[in-house]
């Protein structure tokens, strides 16, 4: 369930005017920006941008970029974009890092629906004049590259059907591939990147039933092994995305200081999806609410925006 709190009646014209007022003149009224944008869903935000462009002949996003700064600016920028465009930006940022953030690519390709992933690929092309898969291929190598390219290229069947025979045989294949650390990467990649999500969950369950332990536990190991790390992230995202995101949040908050990138990314991308459920998981796991943890570890306008997206009342 989503966490953002959207009012019943919304006037995008009034919103555009309010944002204009917040940006004109000396300084910027960040609270006003948060109080408008932090309470609008993706469709409304898009309409506001169009209205703003109509009224003032300038791109709202460019205006915000020039007025704001730091983590707050990054968060606002990501929040205001269309979800598909946002994912394209996140993917590009992850790819272009000196040491690419493979797990971000995994997140985007494995936790979005097949149609959403197609939209991301389109948005990526429009922005960067390359296909997502060619950029991933150009910036990664070895088995990690094979896995990531396959994941971003997948267009999984979206249905509920499960073939138990296949679940059985592929659980076996995965087990063979995983035990003794003799990874048959080809088969693992094939199964993980082509099967429907329902089918995969059946396979993972079968694995757990047959071997008394989850496949991710069997993959624990050398944290220096990039392929293994990426593989674990893949299976976690496919099997239980909410649990995966809870862990990302937990790790990002615990670090010395906070990994703002991860924190922003998860909150911004899940606020309209399942952040409520993730919050519940977080509380169960950490005995403190996510709101409290975020409030303790962040500050200023950045904090105010995050808390608004988390559903805090103004």
């Amino acid at each position, binding site marked *: 369930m989503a966490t953002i709190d959207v009012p019943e009646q919304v006037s995008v014209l009034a919103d555009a005017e309010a944002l204009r007022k917040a940006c004109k003149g000396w300084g910027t009224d960040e609270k006003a920006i948060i109080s408008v944008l932090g309470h609008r869903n993706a469709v409304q935000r898009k309409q506001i941008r169009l209205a703003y462009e109509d009224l003032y002949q300038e791109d709202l996003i460019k205006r915000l970029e020039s007025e704001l700064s730091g983590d707050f600016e990054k968060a606002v920028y990501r929040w205001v974009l269309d979800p598909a465009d946002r994912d394209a930006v996140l993917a590009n940022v992850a790819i272009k890092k000196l040491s690419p953030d493979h797990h971000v690519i995994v997140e985007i390709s494995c936790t979005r629906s097949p149609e959403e992933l197609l939209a991301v690929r389109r948005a990526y092309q429009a922005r960067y004049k*390359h296909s997502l898969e*060619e950029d991933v291929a150009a910036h990664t190598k070895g088995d990690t590259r094979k896995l990531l390219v396959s994941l971003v290229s997948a267009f999984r069947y979206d249905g509920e059907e499960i073939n138990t025979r296949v679940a059985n045989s592929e659980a076996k294949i995965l087990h063979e591939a995983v035990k003794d650390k003799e990874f048959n990467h080809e088969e693992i990649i094939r199964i993980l990147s082509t099967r429907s999500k329902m089918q995969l969950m059946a396979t993972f369950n079968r694995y757990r039933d047959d071997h008394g332990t989850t496949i991710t536990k069997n993959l624990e190991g050398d944290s220096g092994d990039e392929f293994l790390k990426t593989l674990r992230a893949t299976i976690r995202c496919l099997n239980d995305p909410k649990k995966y995101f809870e862990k990302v949040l937990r790790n990002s908050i615990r670090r010395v200081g906070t990994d703002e990138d991860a924190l922003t990314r998860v909150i911004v991308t899940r606020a309209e999806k399942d952040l409520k459920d993730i919050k519940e998981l977080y509380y169960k796991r950490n005995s403190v609410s996510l709101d409290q943890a975020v409030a303790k570890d962040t500050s200023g306008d950045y904090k105010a925006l995050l808390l608004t997206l988390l559903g805090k009342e103004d």
Partner: protein
Amino acid sequence: MALPVDIEALDKAFSGIGVDEKSLISILTNSNEEHKISLRKGSSKLFIEDENGFERWDQSSIKILKHQFNRFRDAVVLSLLHPWERDARLIEKAIRKGPKHYNVIVEVACTRSSDQLLGARKAYHSLFHHSIEEHLTHIKGRERKLLVALVSAYRYEGTGVNEDVAKSEAQILYEAINNGDKNKLLDHEDAIMILATRSKQHLQALYRHYSQSYGKTLAQDLEGEGILKDTVECLCTPQTYFTRVLEAAVKEDADEESKRALTRVIVTQKEQLVQEGFVPNKIQDILLGLYKDFLLASIASGDIK
């Protein structure tokens, strides 16, 4: 807009009673895609609205056609089906029939636009309740990796090629072909990545650099390499590929499969064929009856946009 009389003629054609072939041919070959869409939408007996955004053929109607028309049927069905469904069915059939037919998979994956290929993938979900990639799992041979990569592509279609990268990737392919084990080409990760992810513009630039740098074309160097050669041709020089397929189809000793290729290529490529000037004379000489009328009319109408 499709006239009610057209739709009625269509319904009648497939009702099993008898058919006015001439008007059927005329309707089909004179229809552009927009007209066909409204034909399909109007024929509720024959087509159903699919949730993935196209009009899907009703299974039981196909059986009726089988009785009536045979080869003409192939041409009619291929021509009438929504391109997405048509391509999805072509791929599914090719997977089922085995290695000699994999070139059809390459053909569809590499000669359609990025959005058409996406559409075919969606239609495949609707028709077969699996993704193409999943069904390709059934292929045990070494072609599988390449085929999966090709059908999964969503290539950038804009202009703008980095010539340096194209040149260096031409070198990668050259080395893969000439220095490595030719038998292992289908396993060469970099080669597959290049062929499966780069835009067609980029690959065409790569093709030029290859010829300039090495004195022979990439296709020549892949002579005998089956679907690898087909892949390169379909992406870089499609008219060469289609001409080859058509010539094989009209040879005297052509087998059944090759003959079917004639229908497939003419129906799916008719606009391009008109431009390339494929000679209808060959067809006139060897084909017969309704089938001939239909193909000739298709080519003739290829200039109608």
